[in-house]
């Protein structure tokens, strides 16, 4: 029985160790299709400045290349909430991607300003592995003062509070468990 347990443990150790075997000839970082694919740059281009009018749509053609897999214009980033966005997330080779090549995305994204002022649109592109890049577009919107979007939830602030409260609560629970475990009957 002891032999069985020892052999099981050794099997786990060997399996775990074999998963981190190094290949010294491959000197690059881990990328999309297994380790050591190096993606040195990620291009992201579009207009950098735009003049627009409240309620009037305008189009930005966004091109990303060199391994790009996603383009995103998420709410909560910069002033993205001041626009209605037609394509908040586009994946490579999806129906909205007009570039058929792998690792290259071209998409026409329609923005509708909801209020006047000068705003920053933040566009983000990501390739496989750990490569990502963002690009800011400054938009000057004239016309009527429309609605102001509600402030986005402060997720990082909430998380910061949870980083204190959850470990604290866990510590209290564990102390209670420890008290009952170690107290003398």
């Amino acid at each position, binding site marked *: *029985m*002891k032999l069985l*347990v020892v052999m099981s*443990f050794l099997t*786990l150790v060997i*399996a*775990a*160790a074999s*998963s*981190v075997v190094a290949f010294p000839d491959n000197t690059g*970082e*881990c990328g*999309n299709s297994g380790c050591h694919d190096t993606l040195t740059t990620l291009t992201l281009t579009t207009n950098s400045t735009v003049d627009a009018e409240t309620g009037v749509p305008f189009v930005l053609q966004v091109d990303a290349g060199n391994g790009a*897999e996603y383009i995103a214009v998420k709410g909560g980033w910069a002033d993205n909430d001041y626009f209605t966005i037609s394509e908040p997330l586009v994946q490579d080779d999806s129906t909205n991607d007009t570039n058929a090549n792998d690792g290259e995305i071209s998409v026409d994204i329609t923005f509708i300003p909801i209020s006047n002022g000068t705003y920053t649109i933040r566009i983000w592109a990501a390739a*496989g*592995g*750990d*490569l990502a890049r963002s690009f800011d577009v400054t938009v000057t919107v004239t016309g009527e003062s429309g609605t102001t979007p509600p402030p986005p939830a402060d*997720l*990082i602030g909430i*998380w910061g509070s*949870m*980083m204190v409260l*959850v*470990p604290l609560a*866990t*510590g209290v629970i*564990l102390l209670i*468990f*420890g008290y*009952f*475990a*170690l107290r003398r009957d």
Partner: protein
Amino acid sequence: MVIHPVFVHFHTGILTAAAAVALVNLLLRILFRDNINTPGTKLARLFHQFDVFIYIGSIIGFLGLIAGMVTGFMEPDYPVDALVQMPIMRFKILWSVVCVEIYLYLMIIRAKMGDRVWFKLSTYAPYAILVIFGGIMMMIMGALGGIAVYGTSILQPILDWIGIPWP
């Protein structure tokens, strides 16, 4: 240099295995209480080996968890300010801290009580459940790391099937 992955696979596997073994031990303790308390029986020996596996696995896992957390903040492409922008990373950081507490508790309790940790319900139930919970959390955090790097994980279909949404 990508150093974090080298430090996370080993202890994640150990802790997941420890969770499975703890589940078996918990069932053995509930179903065969008399047998495992009889020295010399096969079941008692098996139970003891499993108990040692959980204890040593928790120590290795705890050290690996610390190493994984330290190296997680050493990636030059991902400074802390960038990491906390991603929900997946926020989840991983938060529950890594909680898991450190859990494994610290398990080590201290097991070190002070030895085999007696399995005697009382008020001791062995939290002990076994926390080993299982910690192992599951480590497995989920590993899967989230896989999703962050590769876009998918072998665990994804299982959690999708259960209905657990990704953070």
